[in-house]
């Protein structure tokens, strides 16, 4: 295997590994369920993407054909991760899990829980 390829693969692997680790660190460290949601849903997906690219490169070289079926895993993850996050967020809201005290707009969480529209003065999104 040429050194450059090994290097690239290594870099992707390391990046992937780091992001996976960071995601899990976030999961362990972050202070409330809502913040914890962020870490794994994206850091880990990106981390996995790193590994997948490394794998693609390596196997493409090894088998001398384009090996891109790993993309499928990435595709799946990118499609499903937001839904998982959404569902977990819903459970957190449903269980009225306390957000970090300094979380802004906690009243919105209450509205979100009941799937209502936010109060009239707070319609900040309106153009």
């Amino acid at each position, binding site marked *: 295997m040429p050194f450059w390829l090994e290097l690239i693969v290594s870099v992707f692997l390391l990046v992937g590994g780091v992001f996976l680790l960071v995601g899990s660190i976030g999961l362990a460290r972050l202070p409330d369920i809502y913040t914890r949601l962020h870490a794994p849903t994206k850091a880990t997906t990106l981390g996995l993407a790193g590994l997948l690219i490394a794998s693609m490169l390596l196997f493409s070289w090894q088998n001398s054909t384009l090996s891109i079926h790993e993309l499928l895993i990435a595709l799946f993850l990118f499609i499903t991760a937001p*839904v998982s996050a959404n*569902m977990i967020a819903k459970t957190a809201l449903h269980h009225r899990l306390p957000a970090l005290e300094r979380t802004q707009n906690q009243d919105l969480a209450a509205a979100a829980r009941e*799937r209502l529209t936010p109060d009239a003065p707070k319609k900040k999104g309106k153009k």
Partner: protein
Amino acid sequence: MSEYLFWIPLLTLLGTFVPLLTEKLNRNLCALLTSIAPALALLLVLQSAEAVFHSESLRQTMGWIPVMGLELAFRLDGLSLLFSILIIGIGLLVILYARYYLSEQESIGRFYAYLILFMTAMLGIVLSNNLIQLWMFWELTSVSSFLLISFWGHKSEARKGARMALTVTGAGGLALLAGLLLIGDIVGSYNLDLVLGSGDLLREHSLYPVVLALVLLGAFTKSAQFPFHFWLPHAMAAPTPVSAYLHSATMVKAGIFLLVRFFPVLSGTELWFLTVSLTGLTTLLLGAYIALFKHDLKGLLAYSTISHLGLITLLLGMDSPLATVAAIFHIINHAIFKASLFMATGIIDHESGTRDMRQLNGLWKYMPYTATLAMVAAASMAGVPLLNGFLSKEMFFTETLYQGSLGSLSWMIPVLATLGAVFSVAYSTRFIHDVFFNGEPINLPKTPHEPPRYMKVPVEILVALCLLVGMMPNFIVGDLLYFASAAALQAEVPSYSLSIWHGFNFPLMMSFLAMLGGLTLYYNRHVLFRFQSQFPDMDAKLVFEALIQRLVRHAQRTVELFENHSLQRYSYLMLFFATILMAGPLLDLSATAGLRPELPIDAISITGAILLTVGALVTVIWHHQRMAALLALSIVGLIVSLIFARYSAPDLALTQLSVEVVTVILLMLALFFLPQKTPEDSSPRRIIRDLALSSMIGGVIGTICYALLTRPLSTISDYFLLHSKTGGGGTNVVNVILVDFRGFDTLGEITVLGIAALGIFKLISRMRLYMPVSDETGRLWANDRHPLLLSVISQSLLPLALLVSVYIFLRGHNMPGGGFIAGLITSVAIIQQYIAHGVEWVKPRMKLNYQWLIGSGILIATLTGLGSWLFDRPFLTSWFDHFHLPILGEFELASAMLFDLGVYLTVIGATLLILANLGKLTTVHRATDMEQE
């Protein structure tokens, strides 16, 4: 020369059906037709008499079950002849008698059938020339007598009496069986001829005492010897014809017959003498004594029967040839007078409505003819001269005088015998005086009068016999007695004389004493009655029933002690047993590790092991919070599939993963209907106990696993690796094993899955549910039934998932995958639609009949296997070939694919039948029922 022997019992056996078939006809006709078979049998017996009287024993043998030494072997010698004549003769009289005894409402057909069946059994016993056959008929008498005694089954005493008789005689029968089998084992044959010739062999065998005890148990229970006598009086609950038959000539005489039959081989020892004679003596005295106090006529006769049986037993126990002759003679005499007495009692009962001697008085006035008959018979029972009872009693007294086996105590036997005779005279006198004289009847239900003409005929015949035998013994029974004795002794018959006058001698004095004593005793009976009345009246029936009740209660308590319907105990016992079975041999295993080199440990493995361990432990620790436990369990499942992946089993990893998810979904579906928390209901002791056992098992299993892993092994698998491609057409050996080498396992496996689904559907249907309206904290459920994102994304993933499952399916034969995994992926994808959209949305849009899927899946797999029959190969022989098509290139077709399709369909059908229907449960009545506990 004697091919007709088996016709004797066969005729009566066939005759059993006659009354059942002719019951609908007129009762007289029924009785008449019923008599035909026994009458013919009697003719056959009498026809053989001549041969027997020429010292021949007739024999007939037919093969039956050689493996168990059972043959149909009949033997007619003097003893059998005597008994056969008694059995059939008295039986015929009873048939006639019963015709008038039973009321119009009672099923005479059933009665006759039981009676003839019983007769058959008795004939079978006395004609047997094979021990097992003998036992067969022996037990048949117990059974058929049960039917007879319990003929009036709606009466409690009849039921209890019958059960008691059956239990006691049945138990004795089992002992007898053991004894006979031992005899057969010792002698090496069950043939009576051979056995009778092996007396010395038996007597000298170390097991002789056991054999003797067992055989005597059989004989004594049957012939109501003390202490097994108690059943007999209660068998009087039977209709009187039954008593007349069972307690004179047949049932109880079977025991006596057995003693006589085995006399040549078992007697002649100290043991025989002591047990048999002492038992007989006790029974004789006890029966005679109690008989006096019975107010019930049949009760009196019952104890009298016991007493006379004791007398015969005593004679046999004396172990002398002459005593045996006397015993046989008394068998005849007792049968005759006792049968007639019972019949007379029946007439009295029938015509006056009671048998209580306190009510019955002075019947002489109402039924003088019957009274005369009864009085003659009773006199015979008392041993009055010129009647048959006198003769055998004289012989009995003689024999008591001439034996000396009790040494210096031998004088007691004649004394006690005389004492017995005193009581015998006393109760006979009571029978005569208390019933026919002694004033006027008291409160009789009916006004007595003479019975119908033909009801008296049997009694007349029997009483006539009493007189005839009593006066002309030689003429009437001389030959019969002689040859019966010869057969019984299997040796020279000693000389004896059957005359009515032997001069003034000691026995005559004993008779005289007995007469005198008896009359005196009867005259002063009130003193004795008063004396007796201070003892509590022990009802054997009650005692026996109480005993059985106690036995039952103890049994119930013991059973409940162990069988307490606690699954925890049953599981514990099984697992404990398993631990013992495994740990025992393990202690012998000197070195746990074998010689196989071990793989090195790495960080990932340690991580996996820790995750797995923690997951498993946490599942246990959290099992009270079920949802959390489920999460912990999921970790374990995940790690297990990673382990499979690690150790070169990709197929297993895939399968484990997909099964895991379906299982978790299923558990959640179920959890909804189950309590969310497990209460703490194990005591600390139980927890420690369970922990101890489970860690023992875990340790043992782990050790075995390690021991296996470290030992080299050569298996048959090289063959599979070698032939997978060439013979099975696939490179994924595991898959080829599944669909080809061991495709039959897989066929079974999908059948299991299909059956499970059917069973689950069966369980779900008509289930009453408790549906919680809130979670365990009391929080109402969220109102968002179908979250938007989930719905949209799940929907768009479905085609993709299906594509993946096709991919997994198609590559299965050559790469990890296959029908099972593909089926699970498809199912999970569809389940995801149910989760995201709900049943109401999915159901109309997907009209798959899951049941049909299961059926067709199994069918396809089976038919694929059957396809090989077309090529004359065994079931499931696979076929594959490579084809080449232009443009598309080369591809492979294999029957295994079709088989796998069957697997695929079954899996989908089964999984969805389970999950979708489970989901459906709630759609209709969501949040209606509340928790109920």
